[in-house]
């Protein structure tokens, strides 16, 4: 009797075609899987997808709204990717974003007498520092006592979000805001300028410039080289005399700082005040974006744009009578399939026929 056995064989090199096709197939399968929920909800999935795509990319307005969502995704994903390069899994971009938003808001509302020209830079600096500080807690615990950063960064998200909420419902609540949990509107000088009549703001430029800078840092600098070695093998890094603990702290703080900057760009560029739903889960989606883009800064720009479209199509879904959170579900499903696809990138599947006695 012949029996076929499925064997996984580790690949020595990954052909470019596999690297390119596996994520595409994974996304396709994610769309198929999510269809089930559309069907259960009584919708034709193909029509829904066409509508979603049209909503996000089919008109100038759609594209501009997609770009508005792209900005925080891009900046957060760049931040997350910095940590991922050293195999530090910062799942706390969401909380770092909130802390950045909080610090930027503090500057805009409560620091008097900043020269007009310095207002935005000071806000940015405050947000960068706040994000870095929020990441410093897990970073130092990781560096000194090897505490798992996945858990600490994730748990601190709740602390950050609830801290912001407590301020919004309490001390920072706008006295003229009809009791809504939000702060007062920022002065115009604390707002990132927007392009024309759209809601797209300077944050987009900041994100793209950051992507270029990160590309240069990671491919051309001495420190980038060290991070590359440390990300590949801690043992080799120690052997070469690199200081791992110090770099854990630096990398995680830098990662947090960038996520914090995304928070500033949201309050200053989009809402003009600190509000409850300052983040549309950007910090979490950023993890998927960074992963899908394989940490390449330029790919992160592209993937952020696609995911921005997915988020902005949430309203299209809502209009069709399904919950907007369907777009998160689709995101999650995509990550799920992409992670499963990793198997096929790392291994070759072989079918072996065996004779069985």
């Amino acid at each position, binding site marked *: 009797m012949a029996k076929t056995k499925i064997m996984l064989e580790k690949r*020595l*090199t990954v052909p470019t075609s596999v690297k390119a096709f596996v994520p595409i197939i994974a996304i396709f399968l994610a769309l198929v899987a999510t269809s089930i929920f559309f069907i259960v909800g009584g919708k034709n999935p193909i029509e829904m997808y066409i509508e979603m795509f049209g909503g996000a990319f089919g008109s100038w307005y759609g594209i501009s709204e997609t770009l508005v969502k792209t900005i925080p995704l891009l900046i957060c994903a760049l931040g997350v990717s910095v940590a991922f390069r050293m195999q530090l899994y910062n799942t706390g971009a969401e909380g770092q974003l909130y802390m950045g938003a909080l610090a930027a808001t503090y500057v805009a509302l409560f620091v008097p007498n900043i020269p007009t020209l310095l207002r935005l830079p000071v806000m940015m600096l405050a947000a960068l520092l706040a994000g870095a500080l929020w990441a410093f807690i897990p970073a130092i615990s990781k560096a000194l006592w090897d505490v798992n950063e996945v858990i600490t960064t994730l748990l601190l998200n709740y602390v950050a979000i609830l801290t912001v909420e407590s301020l919004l419902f309490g001390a920072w609540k706008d006295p003229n805001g009809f009791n809504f949990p939000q702060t007062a509107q920022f002065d115009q000088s604390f707002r990132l300028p927007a392009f024309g009549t759209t809601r797209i703001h300077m944050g987009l430029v900041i994100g793209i410039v950051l992507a270029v800078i990160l590309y240069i840092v990671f491919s*051309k*600098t*001495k*420190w980038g*080289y*060290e991070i*590359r*070695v440390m990300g*590949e*093998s801690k*043992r*080799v890094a*120690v*052997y*070469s*005399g*690199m*200081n791992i603990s110090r770099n854990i702290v630096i990398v995680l703080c830098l990662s947090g700082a960038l996520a914090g900057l995304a928070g500033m760009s949201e309050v200053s560029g989009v809402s003009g005040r600190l509000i409850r739903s300052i983040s549309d889960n950007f910090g979490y989606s950023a993890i998927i974006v960074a992963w899908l883009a394989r940490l390449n800064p330029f790919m992160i720009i592209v993937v952020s744009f696609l995911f921005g479209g997915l988020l902005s199509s949430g309203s299209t879904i809502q209009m069709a009578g399904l919950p907007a959170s369907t777009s998160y579900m689709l995101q999650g499903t995509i990550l799920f399939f992409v992670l499963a696809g990793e198997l096929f990138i790392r291994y070759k599947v072989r079918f072996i026929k065996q004779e069985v006695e």
Partner: protein
Amino acid sequence: MGNLVVEMKNIRKTFPGTVANDQVSLQIFEGEIHALLGENGAGKSTLMSILTGLYKPDCGEIYIRGEKVDFKAPKDAIDRGIGMVHQHFKLVKPFTVAENVILGLPGKQFIQQDEIVKEINHISEQFGLKVDAGAKIWQLSVGEQQRVEIIKMLYRGTNIMILDEPTAVLTPQEVGELFRTLRSMADKNCAIIFITHKMHEVMEFADRITVLRGGKAIATKENKHTSSNELAELMVGKQMSMERKNAGGELGEVVLKVDKVCAQNDKGLQALNNISFSIRAGEILGVAGVAGNGQSVLSEVLSGMREATRGKITLNGEDITNKPVQSIIDAGVAFIPEDRGSTGLAGNLSVIDNIMLKEYRCKKFSGGIFMKDKAVRTRAQELVDTYDVKIPNIDCPVKMMSGGNLQKLLLARETSFGPKLIVAVYPIRGLDIGATDFIHDLLIAEKAKGAAILLISEDLEELFKMADNIAVMYEGEFMDTIPYAKANVNEIGLLMSGVRSGTNG
């Protein structure tokens, strides 16, 4: 002697690239304690893995109590009463002793705690295996955990007990207790096989000894008809091609001085025990010894990767004890680590990145912030050409390269910055003759340039070819250091098993 219980006939087992067992035959009788003696890689563990059903031999036959068996899985061996206590215990730490003992056994729906404890206590009394059945594994000492492993086997009705280097983790008192237990088991008609490379244990506790070397069973001797001298000779082998590479030459000033250094291994056990030695410029100090006697720890302490808990290390008079790795590299210490693929080189990184590991901080290759791309590429290409490293191009990840080429690349990097001290650990392990020659020539060239070289090897032939002096390492210290001219294989073999000449045989 009792009945023949285990007979392995003409066992052969190959792994890709190596023959682990070649025509090995082994007979074990009821009531005996049988030692398997041999160096690392002699094939002891493979042979026992075959007997316990972990591996299937390529050819050969196994008879248990006269009956031919074909083990398809470890379970088949267990059913025949064969049990093995591994060097790394297979115990679930948060579980109790009793829970571990019954783990994996078919049983009733509900666990009869009292009965199990009673049975365990019965076994412990019978064989002097003191242990608290209710204690959790993590609360027990290593010696006690080993007792649990043995009880586990006895509970399963094991009467052919195999122990893989059982004394490696024990204190001397515990060793005595262990062998008293094993003797009482043998007296009750169990057959005991233990793997070891410690001569005194063999001479003290074994009834018969089978020596393995290079995958072959060289001889089986009765304890009363042999001596540690004879066994050492069998274990190490005599026929060596003595084509000496080292042409001698004047030795210079002392470069490395190690003074009463102590250090611990990853498990927190003492691995270096007040070790002291020195190496002069142009000297190759060979270190012989069975792996696991502190060689790796010594190399890591010298290269700054591991902390010395006591003592002092100086390089050309400068104190480098527990200095950061970077300062030690800057002081001129090259390190060829034991596992070239995972410590010395990063597999997924390119040849360029790997070549830069030690020198990337130099002004020549990087400025304040940026790497000097051009200089880096030129350097990498230059080294690849000079050292004849076979590689499609310098942007390739190094994991594509063969072992010999990897080692060439590593040595190219480590010798090119003009090191004052080279620490080389098993530099030719797994290499073919061509690559071995290349590596040896390189080290000799460095010796001629005046580098001090510490060559740690498991291959006596290599040491006799290369070393000016040969030190023998055993349990974290040097048993003795012998000039090449006065060294002989037998004496070194004995020292490797912990026997000082003149005290035995």
